[in-house]
């Protein structure tokens, strides 16, 4: 079996260019997606302030100070033109009392639009809380017959509560992330780095496992079957050598992310790599299952992009699942290893928490594909023999 594993690794040298291309694609696309949708990129929004109040002015200042958006002020018609012309991602319109909400006009849902909505919700929520607190305090002071200036009280409440809000925001955000499944990841670049790595590593895996078909074509498989090595031993060697490639790719991408894109993988780097290895196991066994169904390398070449791209898209490698609202798509995502691996790695990198459910699901998927692949191959060999 050692000889088989060594051979497979030796043969990989001939496909080195394929692995280099896959790794390069992961890096380039991570840079493109991450750079566009995260990192230093600030999308432009326009603000239409028809209310011209202190509160709206504060909100606009806050939007600008967040540096998440490039903010421009203009009138309603001009703002609408900008949105329709796709020059800006959204227009924020303050045209009614703030307690009735704020209009956000956009052509379609985007990650940035979602971020903008969350930011506005935060601002409005803060204003609403200050108002409620001011009103409660006014009631108490009136009941206690204490003389006070309404404007001064509002200012005091705003400054005190607002400051506390600002100071405590990191804590509030953290608790919000833990409590909500819909929380947007704080680091879009990291998401794309993970997503693209998970996506591209699957291609090289599929074709490495597909070497089994090549051995069948070359009849070298016959030589292996005649040798004193079991059928399972041959299969296992193939899987181990494929996994080695996948693990090397994952490690390379984690290190490239750290040193090229300055991605913070959190405190538990080993945990991240561990989940990566588990994901590689699942994708290797999935590849085995696919290879067991097809008959030739040509067939594998035809079906693998459909399967892998479909799974990658569904699983959230190309965009965060948070922006998906379709229940069907979200349900289907649960059947992809990509979704669970992303979830486990992001849980580790965001909050250093070890998430057991994704690990268990990945393990279950890997074992299921392994058993299915092995059995299909066995029954096919019996059929070939009949």
């Amino acid at each position, binding site marked *: 079996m*050692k*000889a*088989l594993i*060594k*051979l497979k690794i*030796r*043969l990989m040298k*001939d496909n080195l260019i394929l692995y280099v291309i896959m790794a390069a694609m992961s890096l380039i696309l991570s840079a493109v997606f991450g750079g566009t949708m995260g990192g230093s990129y600030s999308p432009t929004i326009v603000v239409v302030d028809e209310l011209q109040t202190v509160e709206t002015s504060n909100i606009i200042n806050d939007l600008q100070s967040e540096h998440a958006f490039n903010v421009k002020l203009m009138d309603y018609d001009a703002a609408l033109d900008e949105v329709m012309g796709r020059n800006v991602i959204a227009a924020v319109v303050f045209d009614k009392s703030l307690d009735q909400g704020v209009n956000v006009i956009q052509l379609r849902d985007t990650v940035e639009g979602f971020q903008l909505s969350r930011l506005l919700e935060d601002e409005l929520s803060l204003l609403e809380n200050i108002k409620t607190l001011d009103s409660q305090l006014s009631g108490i002071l009136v009941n206690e017959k204490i003389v006070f200036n309404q404007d001064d009280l509002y200012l005091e409440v705003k400054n005190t509560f607002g400051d506390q809000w600002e100071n405590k925001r990191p804590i509030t955000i953290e608790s919000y992330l833990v409590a909500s499944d819909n929380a947007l990841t704080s680091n879009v670049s990291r998401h794309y780095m993970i997503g693209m790595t998970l996506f591209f590593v699957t291609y090289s895996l599929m074709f490495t496992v597909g070497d089994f078909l090549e051995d069948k074509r*070359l*009849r*070298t498989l*016959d*030589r*292996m*079957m*005649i*040798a*004193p*090595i079991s059928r399972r031993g041959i299969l296992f060697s193939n899987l181990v050598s494929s996994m080695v490639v996948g693990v090397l790719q994952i490690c390379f991408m984690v290190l490239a992310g750290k040193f090229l894109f300055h991605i913070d993988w959190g405190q538990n780097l080993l945990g991240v790599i561990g989940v990566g290895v588990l994901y590689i196991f699942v994708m290797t066994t999935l590849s085995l299952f696919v290879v067991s169904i097809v008959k030739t390398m040509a067939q594998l070449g035809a079906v693998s992009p459909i399967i892998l791209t479909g799974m990658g898209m569904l699983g959230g490698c190309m965009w965060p699942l948070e922006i998906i609202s379709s229940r069907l798509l979200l349900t289907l995502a649960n059947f992809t290893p990509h979704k669970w691996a992303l979830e486990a790695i992001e849980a580790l990198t965001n909050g250093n928490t070890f998430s057991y459910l994704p690990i268990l699901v990945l393990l279950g998927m890997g074992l299921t594909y392994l058993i299915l692949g092995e059995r299909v191959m066995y029954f096919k060999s019996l059929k070939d*023999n*009949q």
Partner: protein
Amino acid sequence: MMIVAEKLTKKFGDFTAVDAIDLSIEKGKIVGLLGPNGAGKSTTISMISTLYKPTSGRLFFEGNDIIKSPKWIKPHLGYVPQELALYDSLSGYENLKYFGGLYGLSGTALKKRVDEVSRVIGIDERLKDRVSEYSGGMKRRINIGVALLHEPKLIIMDEPTVGIDPQSRNHILETVKSLGEQGITVIYTSHYMEEVEAICQDVWIMDHGKMIANGTQEALIEQAGIHTAIRMKFDSQIKDRLDPLRKLNHAMAVDLISDDELVVLVNGGGNTHKEVIKSVMELNYDLTSFDITRPNLEQVFLKLTGRGLRD
């Protein structure tokens, strides 16, 4: 016996590829397995090499049932498939090393065997070149070399000389002969009858999944009833002097072709034709020339199956 098959049968669906054959191969012999395309040779070989499981029957290697437990034969079997089962992108050395590794060889022992085998197959000088750069003959030699690495007791060769130059073919045939001399049992299939005649001690002939004849080449010729024909030309008319010729030992029949030319059919193998010629000389007949046509496996095959080997 090295290999014994009893009522060995292999069916693929409704099609019977091998039909209840009995076979026994002695240790240390080079045995030819002949048959036209679709006769069942490859299926028989595949069953012996444990690639196919027989539908019924029994198969033994050195007395051990290899259908129940293929482990008895696997370490002792060398297999040379008809196709070049090699990795083109690797060198000959790497191919030999890898396949040797499958049989548990490693380190110095493996290196030593690779060196020995590369000398046997005559490819030691270009061993480090990629197989894709080899000629057809060199690839065939490596294909054989792979089967020799672990010093097997039994080697199965499935048409090992297909599509190669005469020089490589001769080298391969010499290699097979020397394997036989070393006491290794060889099962050899080929479409080239002259190869089988040159190297095989025993021949088994298959047709339509059945074993139709077996034995030494002489025995098969005898069995098929084919005789040596001696065409003789005389200086004068011979038609009135035929009786003494018909009475000669081993002369089965005498056919007159012309006034001064005839054919004598001689039975028995070996040197019986020489005895007949000597007797004719002793009769003081004015024999001017003669031509001997000895029966061969091609004729035996034609007689037994009704078709040529390459039909």
